[in-house]
């Protein structure tokens, strides 16, 4: 019997697990995919928002501010890629400037760092910004982050402190019993005293399984371009545009912590949150919008496109609270932007709510607030490279040439507390295959290393999620 079972291991579930790890509790995390951070956590803008955007008084406003402070500390402590970076909200008209002034006022109320720049100020702060802009909101409180590493790091600490991570477990029902809940999965039943619903775009379904139909998911898809590092060098800020009449933040142009450039997203309703397809019209619109903010972006250097589906709901705010029908379930729903920024604060909030519902919160003795170190060869200077390769020659065997990722780093990842089982899971941990050739050269080699290290047949190594098999058998074999 678990004290708390968390449903979903995106950044929200991972943050809840991390917050719970410091208490003497038996925690389980169920995740339907074969890895953590497979939903909105892996496909978003990878931004820590400064906190000027949410309306004052909302959960979003308070948790965003708390979240980015906590995230900064967590990233430092757990060695998660994180880089403070100024942000701009560009205005292209007097109407836009009104919006900027409103954001400024909101930012002030939310205690965010904000100021208004005129055109000259904008171009001084960000020479790549379009000269057509007339001004901007500027903040120094924003940052860029590796979102899947952020979630992974928090989940790893939870696992190190004894949490069970049950991958490839899809929740199909919840039964309410005396003093407990039975969570039914496609791989058996799990008993728990409390449930934290962190199922992202599927939080509505989980909530309804416990009888509460008040959560209404209205997922919205956003598409992105990833561009080569040649383009990432061109900007030194997160560049937003003024929200349009629908209130969307608009297409942003921002470097990633790995030095690439992101351009996106749009925001379109998407009934099926598992539909991660891209389409030509949206991508064309995004390209246009990105170019109007930063005209120097060269779209000949795109390397990938992706779609993220935001777990938005009918509410304008996060839906965080005790289920209306089941006092043993905490809903963490509607965690769309600024969800990544707010995650650590949402995790803490989940713990507070569980405490109020009667969960005994006793500090865990010997809580381990760290995870095994990560070697990132490409970031080491020459002397450090020499030293780590001397210690482990596998760091000298470069597998991914575009991102300079060594066999040592891949083997390290395969021996971590949460074992990556697919080529994309390795990519999310080590960047192998994330570069300009998109795994063209290294994926067969990564494939082989996974098979060798985990002792699984080549045929059973997936590209990404379950069912995404890469090879169909040996050559020369008779088909029967």
């Amino acid at each position: 019997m678990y004290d708390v079972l968390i449903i979903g291991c995106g950044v929200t579930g991972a943050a809840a697990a991390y917050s719970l790890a410091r208490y003497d509790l038996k925690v389980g995390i169920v995740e339907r995919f074969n890895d953590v951070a497979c939903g909105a956590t892996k496909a978003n803008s990878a931004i820590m928002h400064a906190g000027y955007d949410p309306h004052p008084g909302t959960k979003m406003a308070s948790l965003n501010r708390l979240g980015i402070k906590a995230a900064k500390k967590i990233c430092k402590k757990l060695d998660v890629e994180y880089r403070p970076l100024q942000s701009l909200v560009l205005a292209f008209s007097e109407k836009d400037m009104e919006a900027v002034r409103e954001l400024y006022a909101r930012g002030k109320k939310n205690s965010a760092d904000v100021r208004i720049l005129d055109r000259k100020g904008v171009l001084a702060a960000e020479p790549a910004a379009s000269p057509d802009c007339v001004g901007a909101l500027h903040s120094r409180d924003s940052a860029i982050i590796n979102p899947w590493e952020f979630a992974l790091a928090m989940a790893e600490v939870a696992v190190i402190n004894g949490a069970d991570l049950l991958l490839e477990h899809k929740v199909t029902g919840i039964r309410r019993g005396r003093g407990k809940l039975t969570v039914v999965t496609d791989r058996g039943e799990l008993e728990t005293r409390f449930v934290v619903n962190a199922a992202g775009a599927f939080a509505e379904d989980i909530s309804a399984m416990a009888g509460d139909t008040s959560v209404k998911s209205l997922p919205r898809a956003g598409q992105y371009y990833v561009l080569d590092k040649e383009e990432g060098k061109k900007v030194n800020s997160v560049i937003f545009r003024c929200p349009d009449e629908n209130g969307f933040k608009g297409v942003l142009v921002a470097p990633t912590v790995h030095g690439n450039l992101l351009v996106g997203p749009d925001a379109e309703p998407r009934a099926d949150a598992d539909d991660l397809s891209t389409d030509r019209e949206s991508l064309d619109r995004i390209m246009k919008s990105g170019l109007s903010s930063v005209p120097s972006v060269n779209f000949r250097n795109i390397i990938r496109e992706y779609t993220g589906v935001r777990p938005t709901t009918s509410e304008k705010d996060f839906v965080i609270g005790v289920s209306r029908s089941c006092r043993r379930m905490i809903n963490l729903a509607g965690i769309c932007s600024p969800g990544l920024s707010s995650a650590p604060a949402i995790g803490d909030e989940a713990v507070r709510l569980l405490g109020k519902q009667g969960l005994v919160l006793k500090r865990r003795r010997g809580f381990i607030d760290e995870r095994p170190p990560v070697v990132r060869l490409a970031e080491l200077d020459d002397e450090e490279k020499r030293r780590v390769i001397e210690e482990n020659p596998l760091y000298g065997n470069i597998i991914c040439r575009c991102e300079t990722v060594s066999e040592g780093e891949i083997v390290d990842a395969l021996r971590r507390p949460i074992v990556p089982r697919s080529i994309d899971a390795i990519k999310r941990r080590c960047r192998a295959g994330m570069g300009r050739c998109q795994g063209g050269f290294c994926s067969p080699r990564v494939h082989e290393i996974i098979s060798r290290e985990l002792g699984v047949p080549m045929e059973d190594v997936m590209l990404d999620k379950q069912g995404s098999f890469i090879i169909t058998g040996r050559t020369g074999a008779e088909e029967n």
Partner: protein
Amino acid sequence: MTEKYYDVAVIGGGPAGLAAAVSACEHGAAKVLVIERDKVVGGILNQCIHNGFGLHYFKEELTGPEYAGRFAEMVRNTAAEVVTGTMVLGIDTPESGPVIRCVSREDGYREYRAGAVVLCMGCRERTRGAIAIPGDRPSGVMTAGTAQRYVNMEGYMIGRRIVILGSGDIGLIMARRMTLEGAKVLACVELCPYSNGLNRNIVQCLEDYGIPLYLSHTVTGVHGRGRLERVTVSRVDDKRRPVEGTAFDIECDTLLLSVGLIPENEITRDAGIEIDRRTNGPTVYENMMTTRPGVFACGNVVHVHDLVDFVTAESMRAGAAAAEYAAGKRVSGRVIKLVNGEGVNYTVPQMIRPDNAGKVTEVFFRTNIPRKKSVIRVMSGDTQIASFRREYMAPGEMEKIPLPRVLLDRAGDTVTVSVEPAGEAADRA
């Protein structure tokens, strides 16, 4: 730190690197080093197990591994050293001469100093992301070269029902290869109204097996959440935009991409060496030297070749020039810039120094569209200094024209190469 010195250091042990090393040795370089990132030399030829290599250079038909093997043997017969499993992280080019930084499993982090460096990193394949094919992101979508590695090197089948996008040579070769392995190749889809592959490959790899080639078509949708289930194919108009109402689906589990090759010049760029936007390779002089003195380049890292035989010839020249540079030879004198005229996508070299040009300078280029009877004109201002006739030209095949020294001496500082249809205008020649 102990830095070893070599007269000529060659980055990459594929066909370009091996030929450059052999030639550097033949031209007097005493200490030559080849740095290869893979476990063995030979580069991408090792996975090209089909034949058709070497007709020009060896005057016989070899497979890729045989061609590579001959050059590996030639290198073994020289004093050149080869290090494998070694990845070059970057080159620095201070006044004192180039320094190469690299890592390997056996020797850790190392630096080599060199009298001259030859860049032979080859090229990589353009990916789905680079051409932004919309749709789902299932497995079963991969570049033809990656598939070739899985099938020919590792012995794994990568699918059973296959569609190929792009009619570049690797795609065509893989159409035949997958058919021979028992897979069903359903279609080869080409955006252009003509194929970008060699004509012999169209015949031998598609027509001989009855594989339909859809010209002026492209893949406009990818469907499947785990493994690929089907692709949508649409006809495109003359601006290469999909035409509404022409879409049809093909059920398949694999989409192979043969949509172009990109020279791998990250090291080159990081070293601040000038890159030609047309070739995506370094701008080179007649002896294959880049804009950085002492740094030479050859093979697919300079421009994507159609035949390995031409890579070899070019690399022989680069290796020779690198050896001479390491021995102290410096070239001066005037520089003629080659300009891409009508119908010409690029030229290599981009610059010629007549004083160093020898009797004849060979200029390579590709034309932009397939052409029947044509005239290639080489103009210096309004004066034609040479012209060449062709019965047939295609973007898939490299063109080569010889420019004699005597003509170069008569030319001004820019020379334009252009192509036009033969006809009454051609009679000016």
